């Protein structure tokens, strides 16, 4: 187990290095450094000023030198500045991460809970499987951003029950929940289908096994057979999907936050890219990748804890 965790941590570090190096070079290929932007907005600046500014900020040095300097600073815990928001990058990163984790946590709880319930129901009830299949295929094929727009049209425009986006202005849990409801629903519905499909397939496989017939022959009530006997075994593949889906969930958060104008990690990455804020974009991307990979690792560890066959 410890060897697994250590190996995975090394893999995470290598992946982060590769991602940061690759995105750094890719961003270097993008047009317009910050000095170009300054030149555009200030006609007083001369070519000498531009050269002096570039030298001051190290923008005249080659790409890999700048990368190494940036990475060394990052390892010392210096996050640098966000040009877009004109504050230290850490000041926008942590609140954004908190907001996204709340969104993801709520969505994951809802999607996992309802997905597994739907899957178990589809497997346990005779004749329900095709309906669950149809619903989940449709839900999986629905683009997240379209679902978000449809929910806005229904609940914000037509019915006027919920706000169309933004963050709660007044304090209080109920107010925050009102603003969270539509984004969480969008993200949860999009991710529910995967859990439902896989838990249904796993439950169907378990319900055909001999130990289930034995349990039924002993006269156990169907509820005990389902949740006490079949479900613990069926839960293992579902946890695997949980691990594999962490990335999809974070991707969904980017779209959801953009549609509902929630200042989270996803919107931060999008805004930073759109505003040419390399440093912030890269930091946010790495943080999102790190959180995703740690979540995957946590799900893997959980899987090993549930399934004694894997830990041997």
């Amino acid at each position, binding site marked *: 187990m410890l060897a697994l965790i250590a190996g995975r941590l090394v893999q995470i570090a290598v992946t982060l290095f590769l991602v940061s190096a690759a995105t750094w070079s*890719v961003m270097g290929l993008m047009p317009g450094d910050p000095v170009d932007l300054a030149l555009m907005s200030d006609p007083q600046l001369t070519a000498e000023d531009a050269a002096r500014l570039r030298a001051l900020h190290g923008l005249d040095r080659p790409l890999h030198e700048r990368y190494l300097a940036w990475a060394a600073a990052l390892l010392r815990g210096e996050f640098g500045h966000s040009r877009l928001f004109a504050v230290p990058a850490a000041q926008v990163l942590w609140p954004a991460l908190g907001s996204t984790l709340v969104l993801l946590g709520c969505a994951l709880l809802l999607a996992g809970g309802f997905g597994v319930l739907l899957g178990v129901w589809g497997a346990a009830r005779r004749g329900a499987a095709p309906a669950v299949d149809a619903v989940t295929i449709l839900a999986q094929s629905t683009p997240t951003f379209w679902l978000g*727009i449809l929910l806005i049209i229904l609940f914000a425009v037509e019915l006027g029950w919920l706000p169309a986006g933004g963050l709660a202005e007044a304090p209080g849990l109920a107010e925050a929940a009102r603003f969270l409801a539509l984004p969480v629903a969008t993200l949860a519905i999009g991710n529910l289908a995967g859990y439902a499909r896989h838990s249904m397939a796993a439950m169907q496989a378990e319900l055909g096994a001999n130990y289930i017939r034995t349990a039924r022959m002993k006269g156990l009530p169907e509820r005990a057979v389902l949740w006490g006997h079949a479900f613990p075994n069926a839960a293992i593949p579902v946890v695997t999907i949980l691990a594999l889906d962490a990335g999809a969930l974070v991707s969904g958060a980017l779209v959801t936050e953009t549609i509902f104008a929630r200042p989270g990690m996803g919107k931060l990455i999008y805004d930073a890219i759109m505003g040419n804020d390399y440093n912030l*974009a890269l930091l946010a991307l790495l943080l999102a990748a790190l959180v995703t990979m740690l979540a995957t690792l946590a799900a893997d560890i959980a899987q090993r804890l549930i399934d004694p066959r894997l830990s041997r």
Partner: protein
Amino acid sequence: MRLWLGLALLGALALGALAAPLLQSWLGHDPFTPDLFNRFAAPSAAHPLGTDELGRDILLRLLHGARVSLAVALAVALGATLLGTGIGLLAAWAGGWTEALLMRLADGMLALPALPLLVVLAAVDTGRFGLPRGEALSDIIRIAAILVVFGWVVVARLTRAAALTQLSLDYVAAARVAGAGEARVLVRHLLPNIAGPIAVATALSVAGAILAESTLSFLGLGIQPPAPSWGNMLSNAQEMVFSAPLAAVWPGLAILLAVTGCTLVADGIRQRMP
């Protein structure tokens, strides 16, 4: 059953996309020129789905968008399948360090959140590589290339898993004993036997490509207007949800049908595999 339903869905969309110019000359208006006297027109005989905020016909724009979206999907399917099958076969055949390296790479890419990375990659200016800027065709190539970078992973993993079981079977050894070279064993003997899983992976990667392309176009990083794509039509429609909510329904429905078609095809092939 599923296979046929999926193929019928995709076929209908492809047919619609191909018939777009025909329908255009039949309805007698151009979906690219604004007609400001006809904004947000209700559905009628001349405009079967009504018009958008610039008075352009929504149905014709949907069909032209289908050409773009399906072209990207086809290009990604081709690229991801070729690359993924090659890498998967290489990993299964070579084993050892090559396999470990390639599969760790695949694992690493699967663990990453794809969309934030796609957003970063899509913002790269291809003009700096000497490619033409801002034309529909260069957009299609750019998006397809980015999606292939992520699309090969699923194909490679499925190909490797299928190839590993096949490589241990006797017919492979028999072919080698009969004097077939390694390339011939892989291409002529092995490949036909793992075509099923590869087809499933391809169908799934097409579904993923359609969703990813529309998402990027929706975010303004994919196909640039005025060229219509389902994603950028939706991003226009989002700004109009208060005045013309129906305009947001049709492009999403088109994406839904296309992706459902691909999923059904993948499921159908999987059901038919022995």
